[in-house]
């Protein structure tokens, strides 16, 4: 009797958890497209594998952005960081090996994150404005770097590791997604560091009163977001066999929508990694479904915007209630 009510409570908790609506939305959208597109290949394992592979960079960006949002910041520079990191990685690959190229690309993210963090914390200016500024600067640098030329990658090992490869029959892009997602999940949910990150986002003055180094934690969170964007840039470069200044350009809105709809608060203090991953897959699935239904790129953009508004509306409503 007792055990029964206990397990019932558990199910009830799971079903009515604040983050839970992402599961319902995910299932609803999947069913919707499955019905509408019943005469296409939408509802097949290989199509879903394709969605996961195509969205891998988005997923990594979403996971990174979750950290920035968790401390109460936003990072608009992630899209431009993707492009610059991919270009730097691709250029370095023409002269050196994979380790240095990867290191170089990730260093770009590290530098951008550090600049973002230091400017926001030192000047005490909203992260929205600072990262809007760095987004412009980084986009400009990425365009200038190769005069809008794309940089091809012929290194087979690189495209294997960061794109087309399979390990024991599992696509490496899926492995990247799971690995990064698992690490982020553990950090945010199981480690003291994650507790501190959420505390800073939830109530900064309380976090400070409890002796947490609020500024340092916020800078770390912004670093995480930028470095994740750099890794996303490498994944794009690996899959597309080259880098181009347009990479990541249109991703910002999609990533914010994915994270927001996944249950992470846009105002700090609440973060859900599984939601961010599912949210990015949801966005990928919607894209995929819209393409299979014959919608144009422009119409897809409209759909993404509408979804973002819905996600934010849910978030704001929750904020008022909670």
């Amino acid at each position, binding site marked *: 009797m007792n055990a029964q009510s206990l397990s019932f409570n558990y199910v009830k908790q799971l079903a009515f958890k604040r983050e839970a609506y992402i599961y319902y939305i995910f299932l609803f959208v999947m069913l919707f497209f499955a019905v509408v597109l019943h005469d296409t290949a939408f509802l097949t394992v290989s199509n879903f594998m394709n969605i996961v592979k195509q969205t891998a960079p988005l997923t990594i960006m979403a996971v990174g952005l979750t950290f920035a949002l968790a401390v109460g910041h936003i990072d608009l520079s992630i899209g431009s960081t993707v492009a610059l990191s991919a270009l730097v990685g691709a250029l370095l690959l023409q002269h050196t090996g994979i380790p240095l190229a990867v290191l170089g690309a990730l260093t770009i993210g590290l530098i951008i994150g550090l600049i973002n963090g230091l400017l926001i914390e030192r000047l005490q200016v909203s992260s929205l404005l600072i990262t809007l500024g760095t987004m412009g600067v980084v986009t400009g640098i990425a365009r200038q770097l190769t005069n809008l030329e794309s940089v091809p990658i012929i290194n087979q090992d690189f495209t294997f590791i960061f794109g087309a490869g399979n390990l024991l029959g599992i696509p490496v892009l899926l492995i990247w997604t799971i690995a990064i997602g698992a690490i982020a999940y553990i950090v945010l949910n199981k*480690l003291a*560091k994650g*507790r*501190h990150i959420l*505390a800073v986002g*939830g109530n900064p003055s309380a976090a400070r009163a409890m*002796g*947490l180094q609020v500024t340092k934690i916020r800078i770390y969170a912004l670093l995480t977001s930028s470095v994740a964007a750099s890794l996303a840039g490498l994944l794009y470069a690996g899959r597309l066999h080259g880098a181009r200044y347009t990479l990541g350009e249109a991703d910002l809105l999609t990533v914010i929508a994915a994270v927001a709809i996944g249950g992470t608060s846009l105002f700090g203090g609440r973060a859900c990694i599984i939601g961010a991953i599912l949210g990015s897959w949801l966005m990928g699935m919607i894209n995929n479904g819209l393409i299979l239904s014959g919608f144009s790129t422009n119409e897809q953009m409209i759909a993404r915007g509408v979804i973002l508004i819905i996600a934010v509306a849910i978030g704001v409503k929750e904020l008022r209630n909670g």
Partner: protein
Amino acid sequence: MVRTALDQPALELQSIKKSFGGVHALKNVTFKINKGEVVGLLGDNGAGKSTLVKCISGIHAPDEGEVKVNGEAVTITSPEEARAVGIETVFQDLAMIPEFNIVQNLFLNREIKHKNPILRWLGWLDTKAMMKRAKKSLNRLNTRIPSYDEQIHNLSGGQRQAIAIARAVNWGADIVIMDEPTAALGVEQSAQVNELIKVISSQGVAVLLISHNMQHVKETCDRAVVLYQGHSVADVAVADVTKEDLVALITGATTAAA
């Protein structure tokens, strides 16, 4: 009910002075609190109560004067240093994370890590151990909590206050400073908090209670220290004075008593 029999000073303040620019917020404050004693800190707005609290809890450093904890002179220049010598402050806003549950708030920045050395190095949390400790410390304070998984923002003001006090004691404080703990509470919840203050003082903790409520001071405190324009003008046993006497001291109508 005067519990000064122990007569072991936990906190001693000697001629504390603090000014901001040309404003002398504290001109000369001297008093002490013994172990297990509850001392009320009274004074009108602007008398220097909050400045004094900030000087003791490490948010401000006093310009002059001596602070002794358990008989030893200490310099407190940050909240961490105050905490290190055993002084905990229960702030008026309680310094809680609304999205966190009770256990998470109790152990914020004092988390119990996993026993496995590798996981411990990573900072892996031992949630079971924290839950156990939380239950133990709240039970010791006779605080009844509906569910330890409950998020803080779902609790009543009195329950939050109890958890803030439990956190201070849980962190091994010898001296707990409370800023208007019952200001926002109803009658019943105020009574619960008063009860809690008695419980922790009976366990040897020295309590400095800032309050505007004379009834509250009469009920819970052993002694009362009155600040008037930056001076400590009176240090009286609460049992010896009436509420009216205290009000007269606070407003400066009488300057010395008892």
